[in-house]
């Protein structure tokens, strides 16, 4: 690490010494030991800013994030939350179960659990670590390794609060559970470290949505880590919705472990952020487990959105499907890296991957890179990547029926996105996404 880089990382270590070290007695010793070990690891590996030999970050330069002079690296709980700014993140009215976090801290007054079965545990990580450590001790940090990623190490080092969901075996949670992570910053640029932990018992079933956004348009970094573990026969639908402001940086990763015959569906939706990078890593550990991973990224102006989807087929008879789509306008850039690994034991694997992109301007750019690592011989794998402009023939067809050009373009973009949206089973989420697509198209300026 260079001298300059060391100085950057040093600021985070100092912030840790000031904010986390004094509160060591708030959590059980082994959890604080995890944080200590993680900050040491962060100091060692730092931010992945190297431009050479850094394949994982080849298309996303994190220097702007690493070099940003955030004023508050460990913000305190907010004094007051402007609830009117919260509205654009609320879905499912008074039916969905909801937990709101501002600047990394749980806000009990904005939390409601109207339709949660009594045997299900939803709690803040701060509470769980302090009062019920047995709930999280064996899970936290187990699936999200921090020895290779500076960002995961940083999140783990600053573990203070987050969301914990534990669904016991044979329990069906009918209504979604929505975790909303917002930055308010109260005028100061800041860094927050949201953490989500979901444990699904045998044959349990639930839907979870993680939303990320900002209450003000202030420079910020959200560095999120999620861990999902599904026991035998469990089913989880997990969506991630990123609608940050244009001044926000977002880095996130989700680690998913799938037990025997479990089913995981995930929707990844990126609309905001100056730089947004998300890694979704799914390990199909149990025989017969399945995952469907779909995503839509819609970018404009100078935005940069990077999705890394890593699927690891470990057990036989496992199935995975990745369907990602991007709509890129302005000078924005999209990155998609989808990798499928089929381990030697994972015979009868069925894996599919597709990433299709629509470029609405000449300056927009997309880098899409599939990677297949296949060590078993009896498998079916397919992948496809595409990148194109709006179909002139379709545009003319719509116009020839009286639809003006701008409306015709909007219809075609909605049509393009529909292949992803049709996977979204939660109606309030689908409606919300359709509104975000419409708003995103309004904000783009068409060359006349």
């Amino acid at each position: 690490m260079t001298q300059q880089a060391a100085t950057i990382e040093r600021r985070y270590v100092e912030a840790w010494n000031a904010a986390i070290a004094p509160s060591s007695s708030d959590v059980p010793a082994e959890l604080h030991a995890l944080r200590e070990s993680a900050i040491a690891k962060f100091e060692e590996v730092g931010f992945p800013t190297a431009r050479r030999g850094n394949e994982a970050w080849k298309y996303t330069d994190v220097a702007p994030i690493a070099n940003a002079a955030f004023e508050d690296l460990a913000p305190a709980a907010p004094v007051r939350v402007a609830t009117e700014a919260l509205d654009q993140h609320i879905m499912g009215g008074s039916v969905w179960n909801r937990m709101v976090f501002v600047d990394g801290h749980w806000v009990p007054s904005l939390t409601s659990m109207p339709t949660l079965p009594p045997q299900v545990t939803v709690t803040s990580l701060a509470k769980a670590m302090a009062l019920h450590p047995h709930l999280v001790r064996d899970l936290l940090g187990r699936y999200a390794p921090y020895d290779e990623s500076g960002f995961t190490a940083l999140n783990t080092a600053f573990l203070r609060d987050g969301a914990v969901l534990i669904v016991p075996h044979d329990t069906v949670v009918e209504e979604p559970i929505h975790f909303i992570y917002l930055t308010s910053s109260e005028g100061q640029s800041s860094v927050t470290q949201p953490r989500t932990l979901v444990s699904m018992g045998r044959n349990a079933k639930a839907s979870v949505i993680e939303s990320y956004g900002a209450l003000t348009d202030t420079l910020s970094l959200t560095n999120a880590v999620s861990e999902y573990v599904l026991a035998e026969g469990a089913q989880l639908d997990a969506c991630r919705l990123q609608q940050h402001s244009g001044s926000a940086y977002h880095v996130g990763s989700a680690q998913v472990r799938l037990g025997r015959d479990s089913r995981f569906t995930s929707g990844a939706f990126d609309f905001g952020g100056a730089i947004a990078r998300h890694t979704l890593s799914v390990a199909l550990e149990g025989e017969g487990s399945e995952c469907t991973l779909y995503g839509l990224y819609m970018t404009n102006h100078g935005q940069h959105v990077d999705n890394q989807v890593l699927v690891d087929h470990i057990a036989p008879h496992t199935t995975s499907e990745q369907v990602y789509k991007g709509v890129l306008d302005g000078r924005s850039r999209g990155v998609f890296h989808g990798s499928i690994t089929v381990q030697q034991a994972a015979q009868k694997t069925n894996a599919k991957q597709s990433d299709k992109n629509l470029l609405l301007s000449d300056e927009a750019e997309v880098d899409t890179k599939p990677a297949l690592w296949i060590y078993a011989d009896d498998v079916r794998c397919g992948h496809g990547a595409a990148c194109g402009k709006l179909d002139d023939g379709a545009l003319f067809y719509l116009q020839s029926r009286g639809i003006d050009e701008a409306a015709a373009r909007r219809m075609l973009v909605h049509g393009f996105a529909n292949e992803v949206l049709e996977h979204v089973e939660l109606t309030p989420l689908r409606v919300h996404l359709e509104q975000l697509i419409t708003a995103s198209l309004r904000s783009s300026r068409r060359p006349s």
Partner: protein
Amino acid sequence: MLEIRNLSASVGGNRVLNGINLTVEQGEVHAIMGPNGSGKSTLSYVLAGHPQYVVESGEAILDGEDLLAMPAEERARAGVFLQFQHPVEVPGVRLDQFLRAGYNAIHKSKGLEELDPLQFDRLLQQKAGIVNMEPTMLKRSVNDGFSGGEKKRNEILQMAMLEPRLSILDEPDSGLDVDSLRLVADGINQLRSPERAVILITHYQRILNLVVPDVVNVLMGGRIVRTGGVELAEEIEAEGYEGQDEVLQAQG
């Protein structure tokens, strides 16, 4: 109603239309027959406003308005409808929603009532009966996965919904079996009226037995080389297009 004068046009740098003259009156059905590559589809695209087709000279006047100066959507609002020979597949865009957007845009431009989804669905289902289209197809993506015959019937359904003043039908008969051909022909005949006009482009006389034209034009080499009545179509059916050029020259 439509007056085309000395219209020449090119696509991709190639001149395809070479001085078309054609007058279509209200209530008339004009057949345009011609061999492959004679410029039939080009004429239809030029009249509908396809941006890839470049007008080199000439004019087309619809009800006193300069048709060629309008973008495609305005021509549709002025009453022009092109039935595509190869209807475009539009994945992800539902047929009913697409057609309602067009219907309402046209109605709005005329100051007529726009329909909400429920009212529109009722009308659409009723019209779908004309071409024997299943209601479930109306909820599918436009032409996506439709058979050739379904695509053609879908075009006629759209025409029935939009009730154009001038319908340009580009080979409505190609690739159709006998039953579909009859449905398509019935759809066209239902729209015939003293206020409307139809330009029916075809290779074959077959459809002209079902949709009887008032005037038959023969298009070759980008020009109308002969004009006549129904008997002209019969003559071509019997003798082919070869020699039509010479007939013209002999007449000239």
